[in-house]
């Protein structure tokens, strides 16, 4: 740990008219879980989209292990080992659950690897096996989210970008997902996580960053941000009265 895997310097980006990110500086250290939090509309998802190539930065530099990846196509960014699980629904609704997960390994040429991985995934996420023939679009919101996360495990990336993976999940599934993230990380992969479930997110993160209005406002270790009363008041909401 300690070396920067991903570095954003003064990144400015937006959707057509007007800018959304007004100079974002952010460092994601290799081997760490970094959690990005902030109010709705702060620009968290935009940061991820800019990194994965869905959006082209207007100014600033984005580097992965020192190589410039700013403005590359999503395909090219993927080939550098960056996987992005977006916030919006991203399954292919009329394809079967199984085919959806297969698509996760689209860039893999080795069939044996694909088979091994998908079996491993089906073990961990029973829904993939149980509902394999069902059309993904017919699953419930939470079930779809699980399949999306499962699909992301098909590749063996350097960096995983996860945009609010816990939305819509029941408490068990949420635990499973956070557990999985920790496990991925322990397997040596770096994770950049966006979470509105900020307390849980920061809890598993080594490092945290707070965004507001298109800029990174605060950075620190996960626990220090959690402990900061100012952060709590402005971004985390009142401490839960009765924890379930």
């Amino acid at each position, binding site marked *: 740990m300690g070396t920067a895997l991903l570095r954003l310097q003064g990144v400015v980006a937006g959707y057509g008219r007007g800018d959304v990110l007004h100079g974002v500086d952010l460092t994601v250290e290799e081997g760490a879980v970094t959690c990005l939090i902030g109010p709705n509309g702060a620009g968290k998802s935009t940061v991820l989209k800019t990194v*994965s190539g*869905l959006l082209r930065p207007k100014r600033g530099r984005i580097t992965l292990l020192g190589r410039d990846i700013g403005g590359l*196509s*999503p*395909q090219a960014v*993927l*080939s550098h080992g960056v*996987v*992005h699980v*977006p916030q*919006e629904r*991203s*399954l*292919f*609704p*009329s*394809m079967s659950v199984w*085919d959806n997960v*297969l*698509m*996760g390994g*689209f*860039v893999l040429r080795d069939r044996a690897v694909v088979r091994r991985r998908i079996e491993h995934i089906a073990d961990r996420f029973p829904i993939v096996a149980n509902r394999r023939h069902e*059309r993904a*679009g*017919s699953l419930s919101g939470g079930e779809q989210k699980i399949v999306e996360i499962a699909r992301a495990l098909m590749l063996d990336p350097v960096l995983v970008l996860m945009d609010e993976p816990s939305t819509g999940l029941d408490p068990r599934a949420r635990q499973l997902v956070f557990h999985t993230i920790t496990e991925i990380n322990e397997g040596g992969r770096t994770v950049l996580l966006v979470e509105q479930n900020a307390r849980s997110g920061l809890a598993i993160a080594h490092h945290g960053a707070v965004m507001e209005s298109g800029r990174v406002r605060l950075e620190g270790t996960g626990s220090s941000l959690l402990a900061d009363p100012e952060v709590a008041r402005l971004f985390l909401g009142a401490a839960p009265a009765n924890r379930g």
Partner: protein
Amino acid sequence: MHLLVQAVILGILIGGVYALMASGLTLVFGIMRVINVAQGAMVILGAYLSYTLFSSVGIDPLLSILLIAPVMFALGVGIHRVFIRALRAESGEEMSLLVTWATALAIEGVLSVTYTTNLRSTIPGYAQRSWIILGYRVAEVRVFGFVISVVILSALSLLLARTRFGRSVRATVQNPTSAKLLGVDADRVSALGFGIGISTAAAAGAVFGIIYPFNPGSHYDLISRLLSIVVLGGLGSLGGAVVAALLLGVGESVVAVMISPSWSSFVFFIVLIVILVFRPQGLFGVRERGAL
């Protein structure tokens, strides 16, 4: 009774040819949500190409499919590159209607200039031969056409359902953003898919040209039928297109024989409307869960 059976047989054979013509349309829609109004013009173009190869070089029109298909494929890829891709972003379906309609006009114009508007037909030796099976007359060309349809349609559905390319095609249409994120080159896939859809018009055109006389304006009549077939079968469903085409063929020919040709398409259209009102997604279309 004899008349009725004869009408049904004929209808099935007609339906086979329509299925082939409609398959490209439904395929392109299934791949990229583009209603290719130019598909009729593409079929006519295919008919002209095979006519030319036959009348000037003497290549059998059915064999000429093998030569024309790559040309049509390239044309499809080209049209996609220049026009369709530029649209993909926001304006979507309606604009694609207009673009492909303009393409149809352009094709009609080019054909009018090169071939004049005289009616043509490709007449190989077997064009007017027919077999008599159990007392029923079956035109040979139509059987060939039907067989070609079945072969091409099966190949297409295998390609889409079973291969990696097929999966990437379906993925791209259903969610282009996440397809990109998984490493699919969406532009290339759509272009290939569009090309394949257009190249089916080569086979359809070659067969069409033997059975019916055609001129550059023939695509107008064709396209309304093809659209009806594709919608009745369920947009994007190959199997649906086949069933709907057979339904159209048999229905029209039975009504034509039993009542009058003046009412045959009328009856088909009324049936189409009634079915769509109760099953807006068509016979084989599936209703998406949507955002519920």
